[in-house]
């Protein structure tokens, strides 16, 4: 029975880790090329949820709404890069960070004005119900999130390692200026990175909206700050480190809040994890010193 509980918790933790990873990987990609702490990523995550819900209500088709949300958020992300971040790049980096906080505030307020402050249900009959493996129960939504995340990460890995675009992105992440001199269209690569990371965030937003059957204006706030913590823990810009950090944090949070009575909220646990890690290993899990 306890083993079963542990397994169940592990499934929950992996699911939570997947959600974290979807936000954090986008942040790490953006940080990798532009060295910007892209807090507004969380705005794109909730944008994804709202747009997905809208498409779902209009068309009744979940695949259409998921793809529509990812595309729309992707374009939104690329526009943010083009018109807000790009002009700020030559400035001190705190400038872009503050603009990003401004964006996040705008995002949640726009959704509040359009859709109201209350939680909207994201009822999806096809993902209700669950699979049973012996005594282990996995809901369909959980399964969809796990499979979807795995699929997205495999695609992302293939994209980065096997395609010309991936090569250009990796070159830009190494050194933006040199990549430019070597004839890589850096502006285009960066725009695509924003498209990809925003689309992944939107996927996360839609799935979490379905999971908790709730979409609301500031659903991205907490995850925004956790995402920042995760890219620091993972080692700035290291994608694998960030994914690793996402799962470790999810496991630590789940275990600590299930089995102990630490006087901290989940956010508190995550941030304490961050503070302790910086004390021990300031360059992050997989960062270079």
């Amino acid at each position, binding site marked *: 029975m306890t083993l079963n509980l542990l397994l169940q918790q592990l499934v929950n933790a992996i699911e939570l880790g997947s959600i974290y990873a979807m936000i954090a990987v986008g942040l790490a990609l953006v*940080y990798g090329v532009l*060295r910007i*702490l892209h807090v507004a990523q969380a705005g794109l995550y909730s944008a994804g949820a709202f747009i997905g819900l809208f498409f779902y209500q209009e068309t009744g088709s979940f695949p259409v709404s998921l793809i529509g949300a990812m595309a729309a958020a992707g374009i939104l992300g690329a526009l943010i890069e083009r018109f*807000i971040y790009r*002009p*700020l790049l030559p*400035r*001190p*980096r*705190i*400038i*872009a*960070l*503050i*603009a990003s*906080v*401004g*964006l*996040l*505030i*705008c*995002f*949640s*307020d*726009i959704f*509040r*004005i359009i859709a109201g402050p209350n939680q909207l249900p994201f009822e999806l009959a096809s993902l209700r119900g669950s699979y049973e493996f012996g005594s282990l129960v996995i809901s369909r939504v959980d399964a969809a999130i796990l499979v979807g995340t795995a699929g997205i990460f495999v695609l992302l890995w293939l994209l980065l390692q096997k395609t010309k675009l991936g090569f250009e992105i990796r070159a830009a992440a190494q050194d933006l200026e040199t990549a430019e001199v070597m004839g890589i269209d850096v502006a285009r690569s960066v725009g695509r990175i924003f498209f990809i990371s925003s689309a992944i965030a939107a996927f996360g937003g839609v799935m979490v909206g379905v999971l908790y059957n709730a979409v609301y204006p500031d659903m991205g706030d907490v995850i925004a*700050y956790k995402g*920042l*913590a995760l*890219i*620091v823990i993972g080692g*700035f810009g290291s994608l694998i480190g960030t994914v690793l950090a996402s799962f470790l944090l999810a496991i630590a949070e789940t275990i600590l809040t299930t089995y102990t009575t630490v*006087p*901290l*909220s989940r*956010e*508190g646990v*995550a*941030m*304490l994890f*961050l*503070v302790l890690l*910086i*004390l021990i290993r*300031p360059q992050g899990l997989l960062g270079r010193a």
Partner: protein
Amino acid sequence: MLGAYALTVLTLMGIWSIVALGLNIITGYAGQFNLGIGVYMGTGAYATAMLTTGAGFDFWLALPCALAVSATMGFLTGLPALRVREDALAVLTIGLVFVFESLLVYLPYFGGPVGIGRIPPATISGSPLGKEAYLALVLVALLLVIAVTLYLKRAWIGLAWASIRESELAANVIGIHPARFKLYAFAVGATFAGLGGVLYAHFIRYITPYDFGFLTSIYVLTMIVFGGVGTIRGAVLGACVLTLLPELFRFVQDYRNLIYGATLIALMLYEPRGVLGDGSFVWRWVLAQWAPARLALASRKPATRASPAIAGAGTGRCTKSGAEASRMRSQASLLQTRDLTRRFGGLVAVNGVSIEVFPREIFGVIGPNGAGKTTFFNLLSGIISCSSGEIRFKEGGIGDLAPHRIARLGIGRTFQIVRPFGELSVMDNVFAGLGSRYCTGFVDALGLHSRKSFREEARAILAQANLGEYENETACNLPLGLLRRLEIARALGLRPDLILLDESFSGLSHREAQSLLDLVRSLRAGGMTIILIEHNMQITMQVCDRVAVLDRGVKIAEGTPREIQNDAAVIAAYLGEEGDA
């Protein structure tokens, strides 16, 4: 008389100004990102709330205790902050504010999510202060904070903060201990923010953990960014405007946050220095309006002209007679390295290098690109530690000392890519160099650096470096040739026995190089020892007494310039092996 509503708004403006000035010390002056100022405000507020409600302290007794607790909190949170910079520091401070809020909510001592209520009002001789009196109290506190800020900015401590903000590495090699001054900044900033928290707690008289969370911290950061980071006027303006705006925008209550966020973005895009920041549109306009008045004032003062630069120019005393060389060698060496080695992973950047440099010698270190010359300098100045080997300076081992300690022992240095304190004046750059000699403890750090005696010493150094006429110029406006001299002038503030010049001649015009050469010779004439890294063979041959040649981390030759020029190994290293070229 003012209405109750106006009094409330004015009091809040004063309180937020105090908190903003606290953040201004940490982020504006010392240049340390902090997105968690709420921690310190909350510490002050909770300390006074608990002391007055729980322990029955009087307001005036609780106040100093709460400030001490806030300062301690600043110090303690500063400790992890020392391990990271810039973005990671920003994220760390976000982390701290969440941990702080979470602890207040979940630990049983702080009243949980509902916080602490019934905080008694401030009193004077037993009777509670009315609204007017409390506003007066807040304004007095604000004036006090402004006065302290103004003073600190003009003291050694303010100069040390500015140096660290402009270039931590350069500050370190002129003898400033960055960690110590960062902790001071955190403690002072936390004290100010804590004072704001105390005043807030006794004004609102009911506090919850959420009053001092991440959003509050961002709000205060926005204040100083709005007004202009690093300026008192900016922090106060930002605090006033951001307190007033929500009141003014009540009619568009629904769109308040949207307007707030959009303003933030627009400001970053079009006026990132803040409305009243140095160099912002409005501030330039204000200065232009004042300019005639200021000129009139200035013309009444007696003109203080820098003494014309003479020292060094054209002395050209470069004697390399055999007699002098042997005299030097008979003395004890000033600097000695033995088997100095530094590995980076599998790469051995400096491999078993032993050199000996004698007093008043000009010693060259040359070698092809990637030979390990700059790594060698970084080892000597303590920026990186050696993997094995030994460095002795004036007969003491310095291999394991931190850069600021090495600097204070009397080794100055310059950088291949110049690192001036760009936003500071030329004079202040030199003051910063003098600082480490005059400001060693906390009490010294509170002394003013612009006193006459320091000014005269700084002027003498500027004259020696032929920079006298630029003393009031902002450093980043100088051309490269002058920046190289400025770096030397800054190092001269240490009164060093040894100066390390890292490719000081590269990128200079012939005339600039000749005048720098004269400076180097005059320094030696004044009793200094110089080690220089150089690519330019002609310069090396002209000025050096002896030369060591590095190739791939190994010393392949050492001797007088003439001996080196004819050394087969050196020729091979520079031109490639036969058939290899």
